[in-house]
């Protein structure tokens, strides 16, 4: 009962502020609503007992990426931006992508079996009490089973970072 209330609260806040984020004309307001969406999503992660994802979402997205977004928005003149066109002209592409995503989600829900009285359950769902500690489970996967992709991703990020520094440096 309480779980449902909390879930629908977070989900409602996430969807509502996502909609507001798209429709606001002021870029700073959009950024604030994006932060709200990310925080509500973090709350849903926490409710799923994925503590590490919850805090990673907050540290990386809210306190990292959004700070940089706002940093850039602060340096832009918003008076000009308000008079620009708000949406791009790719309506049909957007519609197609949205429909494809909706189809994907419904197929996923369809393929998961429906238990009477319990709603949808994913095929290998673990009961709530028997979940392994999230941080350890995630670390075990990342540094054991998926070590190579993880290392490749981090090298890629390092290359991107060094590249950005080189491009930002003044040529002397």
């Amino acid at each position, binding site marked *: 009962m309480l779980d449902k209330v909390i879930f629908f609260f977070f989900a409602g806040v996430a969807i509502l502020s996502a909609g507001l984020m798209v429709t606001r004309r002021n870029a*700073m*307001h959009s950024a604030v609503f994006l932060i709200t969406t990310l925080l509500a999503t973090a709350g849903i992660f926490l409710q799923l007992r994925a503590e590490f994802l919850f805090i990673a979402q907050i540290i990386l997205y809210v306190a990292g990426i*959004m700070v*940089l977004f706002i940093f850039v928005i602060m340096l832009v003149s918003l008076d000009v931006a308000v008079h620009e066109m708000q949406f791009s002209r790719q309506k049909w592409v957007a519609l197609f992508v949205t429909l494809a995503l909706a189809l994907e989600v419904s197929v996923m829900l369809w393929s998961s079996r429906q238990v009477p009285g319990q709603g949808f359950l994913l095929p290998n769902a673990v009961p709530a009490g028997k979940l392994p500690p*999230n941080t350890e489970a995630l670390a075990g996967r990342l540094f054991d089973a998926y070590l190579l992709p993880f290392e490749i991703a981090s090298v890629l990020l390092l290359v991107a970072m060094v590249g950005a520094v080189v491009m930002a440096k*003044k040529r002397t």
Partner: protein
Amino acid sequence: MNPIIHAVLAFLQTWWVELVCGVVIVAVVPLVAGYLVLLERKLMADMQARLGPMRVGPHGLLQPIADALKLLIKEDIIPDHADKMIFWLAPVASMTAALTAMGGIAFGPSFLVARDINVGLLFVVGVSSMGLLGIMLGGWASNSHYSIMGSLRSTAQLVSYETAGGLALISGLLLAGTLKIRAIVDAQEQYGVWFVFLVPVAFFIYLVASIAETNRAPFDLPEAESELVAGYMTEYSGFRWACYFLGEYANMIVVGAVATTLFLGGWLRPFPHVRWMNWLDAVPAVFTAAVGAYCVYRAGKQPVRVQVWFMWGVALTCFAVALILGVPLLVAPLKFMVPGLNGAFWFLLKISAYIYVFMWLRFTLPRYRFDQLMHLGWYILIPLAIVNVLAVGMAMILEMQYGWNRWLAMLPTTMITLAAALYLLYLNDKRAAAASSAAPPPEEPSTGDSYAG
């Protein structure tokens, strides 16, 4: 029964301890913040051979109450063309982040809100870093040049120093092997030594980074009054300004608590395993009683009768606390309360010492220039923290895989990091010498960053 009432009752039954702790935090922290301000002013006065606030209450002891009342009834000004929604939101965001982060801290073995959260320390650090958003949004929404300069500076500073501080925390977390607050302290109990003695360089880096993160002197560039009036807080007044202020002082307590938990042994008393040092268990009660006795001694010397009464009141409070701390030591059936009470005492004492160092540094060191600040962060602290993490990691491998003695493995890490620090300082000197001989105008900072103010 109505299902909603039933659900609420079940919720309360499970979580009432955490709820009470949360309410206590929200209720007590503003008071503590006010008295930290008074303490800071008194310390500053003492170091500058003045008296400090003396008018309100004996030795200015009621000054925080008067300040709070003044701030609450002060006119609330919103500048023209300010973005109202964000102007309202920003101080609240700053304060909420700091108070929420406090929920993750364990003030002693039995006073903790987030009891079993798997990412304890990360929760505290991450949520408290969200306070930066409040500073940025407030500076932008004020529609003022000083404010936006302050918040741009603040962002650049916090992003840089959070990296160094986070890497310093990793050195300690490698030793603890867990993120849970309670398990970190337990690990230090098992090691028999506080982590500050194993990784002193990491503690020092965290100390510097935490001063920068809380925007305090010598790194208070975002609100440097000689350059930016009050930085991001310039346009704020009254209650909103108080919210920022509360957030800032709550953040000081938060970084103090993080450093205490990870490096200074949390709620452990000094030498928790040495049997003949057990008399240290009596220190909390005796210490509080001594403070009470001193108040009684001073009460006779107060000039006004109100002040005499007030001193007696403080003394009686101290005696009551001493009684609460002391009785469980002597009465056998109450022995189970000793770790909780003494733990809270030691924890608060360690946080106080940490905050005292903050204040001491503020009155001792002159303010940095912004490019010096960035240099210190990026050229010295971050490389040093990375070297330290690598060295500690290698020492852990030596200890776990090859069975080396812990001290033998840990000692070289400090040596390696200090050698790296000397090398970095040498490089820095060389660069500074090259820059001063190459560039004739001395006031031009070599980095040329646009947010230098």
